[in-house]
């Protein structure tokens, strides 16, 4: 892969360009796309621009600019594409939620709470950029973070706090707001995994008994990790949260592979996933239902109404879509949350959906690129983990809605209606911005103290080449 990585080699030094003006231009383009969706919805439905067009534009552009300024001020070397991608997806998502709000009579105002959550998420991203500034100290809190993640995951099981929705007990409700703590847990756990693996990667990779041609880690190195994973999976399985279990498992296997550089982990992970999936499919009724809905949805119209309606929406939208406001996404239950990709496909067409998938891909690849550029293992592993987590979640949810995979009930990052996902995704953006800033920032060249610098020298020695 192209890309200057090594710095301070014998005779070349790479200095990344900041590209902040490019970022600003792209932020504006990305925001125009979301605002255009908002305007087109009203133009198509009422024939006029929305009455709040001006104020909405000012708020939305203002939020984008605030983020940009924070980056310019405290993380000037951060990757210039991450923010525009996130803002594009978030803007289109908000416009679509507003569009779906307009279907019932009188219209709903769910987009307002979504905008508040978005603002909160952005604020946390700014806090990450401005206050945290460096992600590396997080490495010191391996077990604390892990415990925090576990507690978060178990919150929905607390009586009186957790609520069961759509067959999965993954929500907590405080006052009027419901929150999916597993969303936050996946973020916290990724950091915990990364820091643990950095600590133990050599021990995991090298020491240990050989079995079937594979070198296995010593139990005492693997045990803490195994316990972490086992606990996390148990909690998720008891909550019937299929999507989140798959996400955790995939993340764990990939991070283990990256840190140990042993492909055997991928094979082992793949095999145990297949085994677990088979077991789950034959043991749990709700898993069978999901698999039936995936393979033969049309055999049970009433039960699989949602996924069938999503497919009808795609066919109705066709290649170019019905246009903003002109489709009927409201026919699909949960069009604002789990099935927002169906609403987008119906109104923007398969072309529009594919464009959005490309933006997701771009975001994930910028994250992976940051991982490649990183100089220390923790940054590498953390950036890889966050990027892959993001990509896998997009794959599982959009794949579920388009019937590539069984429906797993995850949120669509930056788009689905829901606060927890929005806030956590913005925190991921913040953290990736910080990592990429730290990674791409020119390192102050270590000035080797040579005898030539010594003012007390008696005999002048030839001056060393000065590096920029």
């Amino acid at each position: 892969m192209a890309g200057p990585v090594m710095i301070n080699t014998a005779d070349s030094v790479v200095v990344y360009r900041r590209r902040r003006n490019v970022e600003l231009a792209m932020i504006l383009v990305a925001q125009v796309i979301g605002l255009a969706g908002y305007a087109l919805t009203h133009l198509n439905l009422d024939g006029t621009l929305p009455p709040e067009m001006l104020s909405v534009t000012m708020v939305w552009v203002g939020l984008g600019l605030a983020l940009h300024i924070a980056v310019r001020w405290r993380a000037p070397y951060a990757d210039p594409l991450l923010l525009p991608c996130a803002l594009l997806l978030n803007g289109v998502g908000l416009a679509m939620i507003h569009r779906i709000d307009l279907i019932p009579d009188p219209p709903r105002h769910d987009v307002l709470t979504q905008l508040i959550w978005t603002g909160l998420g952005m604020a946390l991203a700014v806090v990450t950029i401005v206050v945290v500034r460096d992600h590396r100290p997080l490495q010191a809190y391996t077990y604390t973070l892990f415990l925090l993640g576990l507690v978060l995951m178990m919150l929905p099981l607390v009586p009186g706090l957790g609520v069961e929705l759509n067959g999965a007990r993954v929500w907590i409700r405080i006052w009027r707001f419901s929150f999916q703590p597993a969303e936050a847990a996946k973020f916290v756990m990724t950091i915990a995994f990364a820091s643990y693996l950095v600590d133990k990667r050599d021990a995991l990779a090298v020491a240990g008994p050989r079995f079937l041609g594979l070198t296995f880690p010593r139990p005492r190195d693997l045990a803490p990790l195994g316990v972490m994973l086992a606990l996390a999976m148990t909690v998720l399985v008891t909550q019937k949260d299929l999507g989140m279990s798959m996400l955790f498992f995939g993340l764990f296997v990939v991070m283990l592979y990256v840190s140990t550089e042993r492909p055997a982990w991928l094979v082992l992970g793949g095999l145990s996933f297949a085994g677990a999936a088979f077991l789950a499919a034959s043991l749990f009724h709700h898993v069978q239902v999901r698999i039936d809905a995936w393979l033969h949805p049309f055999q049970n119209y009433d039960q699989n109404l949602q996924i069938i309606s999503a497919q009808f929406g795609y066919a109705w939208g066709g290649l170019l879509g019905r246009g903003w406001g002109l489709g009927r996404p409201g026919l699909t239950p949960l069009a604002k949350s789990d099935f927002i990709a169906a609403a987008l496909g119906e109104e923007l067409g398969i072309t529009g959906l594919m464009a959005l998938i490309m933006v997701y891909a771009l975001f994930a690849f910028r994250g992976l690129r940051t991982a490649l550029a990183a100089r220390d293992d923790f940054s590498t592993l953390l950036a890889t983990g966050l990027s892959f987590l993001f990509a896998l979640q997009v794959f599982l949810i959009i794949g579920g809605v388009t019937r590539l995979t069984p429906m797993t009930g995850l949120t669509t990052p930056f788009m689905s209606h829901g606060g927890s996902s929005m806030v956590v995704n913005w925190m991921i953006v913040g953290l990736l911005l910080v990592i990429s800033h730290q990674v791409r920032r020119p390192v102050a060249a270590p000035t080797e103290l040579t005898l030539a610098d010594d003012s007390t020298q008696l005999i002048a020695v030839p001056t060393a080449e000065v590096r920029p």
Partner: protein
Amino acid sequence: MNKPIRRIAVLTMALFVALLLNASQIVVFQQDSLNTNPQNRRVRDEQFGGHRGSIVAGKTTLAVSDATPQGSQFAYQRSYPQGDLYAPVTGYFSYDRGSTGLESAYSAELAGTSNSLFVRRLVDTVTGRSPQGATVETTLDPKAQQAAAQALGHQQGAVVAMDAETGAVLAMVSSPSYDPTTLSGTDIKSAGEAYGTLLQDPDSPLTNRAAGEIYPPGSTFKLVTAAAALENGMQPSTLVDTPAKLTLPGTKTQLPNETQCGDGQQTLDRALQLSCNTAFANVAIKLGDNALRQQAEKFGWNFQLGDVGGVAARFPANPDPAQTGLSGIGQYDVASNPLHMAMVSAAIANDGKLMTPYVVQTVRAADLTALSTTKPKELSQAMSAANAQQLQGMMVNVVNSGTGTSAQINGVRVGGKTGTAQTTADKPPYAWFTAFAEKNNRKIAVAVFVESANVPRSEVGGNVVAAPIAKSVIQALL
């Protein structure tokens, strides 16, 4: 750690490529089947609320789409100006109970979505004009339709009239009927309730008695037996054993005559005039079931007029001689309907040549160009021209001096055959009359069926109840 990261990047790319490929295949391979799925509400709503072309008969409008007030859920609403009268042909166009009749058979043309309208649709899309459906022009003659309905009155039954030389259906009435407007309304709830009421009505008004059901045709089937007899070498003057009571072969069942046929022999011609059961049972037994079945099939027994949900008529598959005898007089397991009985008369009147019945003459696009026009087509040669002309003479005799005297019309050559079919002992018999009429080189055929004829159980049912209805229709047409 860069090597594993690059591999993970490739894996990630594979995930996204899989998403993109899968999204494309939905449009490429699944779009059509998903859009034609009857459970697809998006397509159904658009079709239901969209503009549909009219269904007309001459200058009479049978079905039309009217624009609804601004802000309604659906842009257009279907209405049927003389709904009850034309319901057997137009059918209804409902939101969630499907559609029937021409509304169903010509749905794509009416909605403007058929392939034949593709270019116009493209032009409409480019010019920003809202697409218009095509008009379906039927072959119905409003005068005959009205006359038939009026003559039938409140009786349960049906009438079919057709042009014997082309096969064009001129009248198709079924009674009791229903108003398709009540089922096609945009108030989906009340339309659903109306449908439920009609469905539970013991008189089954939704049934198309003219072509969509089959009933025992009784003595009118003797025309088919007579045709088979002529085709197998008999003459109108051939004497046939006509005992007062015929013991059916292999049984102890005695078949009586319903009319005064004596107890000896009758010519085939006279036996038809008097509608002698024993004579035709004997002819049928002699010819055998295969000859009868073949003759029935030549008269279009297997034909189905799909445009109005028509069904085929029926002749038993493996009758024994006794059953063949009963079949020869239109009892046992023989079943037909007014359309098929009109086809029998039409083929006889048209010198043996049976024309394919049709109800749609022309499908015309909004710019008045004809998208398709039905050309008369021969369905089969039911019998030789000579035999057909002999049978015409026999049918004329039925009307002039036989059981069908009620159908006589001054100045018109009318030939017919009555029928009274027993169903069960506790139900009144079915009264039938099928006829052809000829005047000024125009030949038409009519069949009348009255389900609950309020007459004594005798052969006169057809003449008293059904023949006058046929007469009114003939007078309206000629």
